């Protein structure tokens, strides 16, 4: 990738008149119809009056749905962002050392080692989550082992706790963290650390002042890519949690597909989207969109 830095001019990049728009149109029209238009409809729905059994929601600039969303489901919002935040932090703490180890120690096995990181994600996400619930079940060996540890007790349970949900979120989305970090570490010329050592830095200083800053784009991209799906998820909470670990995704899913309370559900999902889009725009303002498209 480093070789690809030469400027556009010498690559024969075309100045298009109509051709690029022709090439773009099928894909972009699809996205306009089935991404942008639906979002606009969702905005409309969020500003509609609450429907009853016999009356369809009516568009009334009804902002009360948003205050209802906050007042009734503030806890779930906070919990979702806290869980997703912790999962993101854990993913950095686990993913960064692994990516660093692969880049620095992997040698000629690097491609294989990073390939292995992706392999688990070719089994269904739902089945992996169910697999965790089976591994951690109360009668299983993992739980017995956890109870035997000194700081726990016989009442200690691995399953259906807040930390189980956070663990599931971390597990399910960690490849989104490892791969961008790997890509950014892999671009670093590690002779820079030798240069730092020649200038009397300790290995730790060399890491902190040279490698870490250069790999931050990967960390930022990975954080977004983990945080976004984690914040909106409801399967981990469903399979690994308990009623007190409900996330905002659970509420939205339930309101749309079980209770048919569209206006509030729409408001809830838009708030989630607004917060996340703000994070994404902030990110792309400083770091561009390339890193997100790994």
């Amino acid at each position, binding site marked *: 990738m480093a070789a690809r830095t030469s400027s556009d001019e010498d690559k024969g990049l075309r100045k298009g008149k109509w051709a690029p728009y022709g090439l*773009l149109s099928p894909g972009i029209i699809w996205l306009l119809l089935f991404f942008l238009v639906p979002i606009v409809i*969702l905005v409309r729905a969020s500003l509609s009056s609450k429907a009853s059994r016999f009356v369809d929601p009516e568009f009334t600039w009804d902002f009360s749905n948003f205050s209802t969303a906050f007042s009734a489901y503030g806890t779930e919002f906070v919990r979702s962002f806290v869980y997703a935040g912790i999962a993101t932090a854990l993913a950095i703490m686990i993913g960064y050392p692994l990516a660093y180890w692969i880049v620095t120690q992997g040698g000629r096995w690097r491609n294989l080692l990073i390939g292995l990181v992706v*392999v688990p994600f*070719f089994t*269904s996400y739902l089945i992996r989550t169910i697999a965790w619930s*089976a591994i951690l079940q109360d009668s299983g060996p993992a739980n017995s082992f956890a109870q035997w540890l000194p700081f726990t007790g016989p009442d200690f349970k691995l399953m259906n706790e807040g930390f189980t949900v956070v663990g599931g979120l971390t*597990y399910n989305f960690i490849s989104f963290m490892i791969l961008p970090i790997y890509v950014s570490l892999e671009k670093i010329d590690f002779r820079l650390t030798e240069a730092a050592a020649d200038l009397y830095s300790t290995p730790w200083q060399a890491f902190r002042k040279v490698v870490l800053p250069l790999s931050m784009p990967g960390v930022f991209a990975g954080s977004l*890519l983990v945080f976004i799906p984690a914040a909106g998820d409801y399967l981990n909470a469903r399979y690994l949690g308990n009623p007190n670990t409900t996330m905002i995704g659970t509420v939205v899913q339930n309101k749309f597909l079980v209770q048919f309370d569209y206006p509030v559900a729409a408001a809830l999902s838009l708030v989630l989207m607004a917060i*996340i889009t703000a994070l994404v725009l902030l990110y792309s303002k400083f770091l561009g969109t390339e890193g997100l498209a790994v």
Partner: protein
Amino acid sequence: MTMSAGAAPPIAAEIETLPDGRGSTKSERVGSGWGRRIMTGLAVLIYLWLFAPLLWIILFTFNDSKSRFNISWDGFTLKNWADPFKDSALTDAFLRSLQVAVISVTAALIMGSLVAIALARYRFTGSKVTEIFLVLPLTTPEIVLGASLYQLFLGRDITLGFSTVVIAHVMFCVSFVALTVKARVRGFDWTLEDAAMDLGAPPWRTFRKVTFPLILPGIVAAALLSFALSLDDYIITDFTKGEFVTFPIRVNNAFRVAFPAQVNVLATMVLVVSVVLLVLTSVRSEKGVTK
């Protein structure tokens, strides 16, 4: 995963693009002694953690389960592998998932690659906006994508089912394909096309002999990954499915009453096939590099 695409990894695309051998000269064995050993130990633990559910899934394909829930070990058997399609509702759902994935991925590959070529090859007004617009579906939580499509279809009185699921899957795959292919053709030297045409090749032949082979690795990677995304998708499908049942939906719906070992067998089959394809394509692209 749209990445949102929740689950699946956008990212394996990168595996093939790693410049072979380049790293080994500049990063030979940084660090030394104990630090290195601790790092390696840690890495082994992380790999174990990553593979734990997989090992569980594979192990329990051999479980002679006595209950309807294949989650506690009752002894070794091969009978689940002898009859992988025993659960007909599950098998039907699995075939429907494959069908959805094939159709959605084909459509997304065509549309997404065209978008990628447009972005990588031309300079035009609106290209920046287009790039941001392409990223948005992937950075929007799946639940919002699902919910908004649900509202769209509901408002137009469109019956939810196979076609709405395909529409949704095409939507999140298009962005994904466009960005993956674009990342691969970013450094492409488009003057090669001029060279071919100077040598008398007509445009279609130029495309077939020069452009297409060069973007093909990107398309293959995008195809594999978006296929995995589509096959695996739960959340968006949940909102657009109506009465239509895909494999993940079936597993979820059945989980209240049963979790047959065939779930594990089918999941293991998908895993094996994807790993084989992943290895094959990366070996091929490595060969391509050395040639």
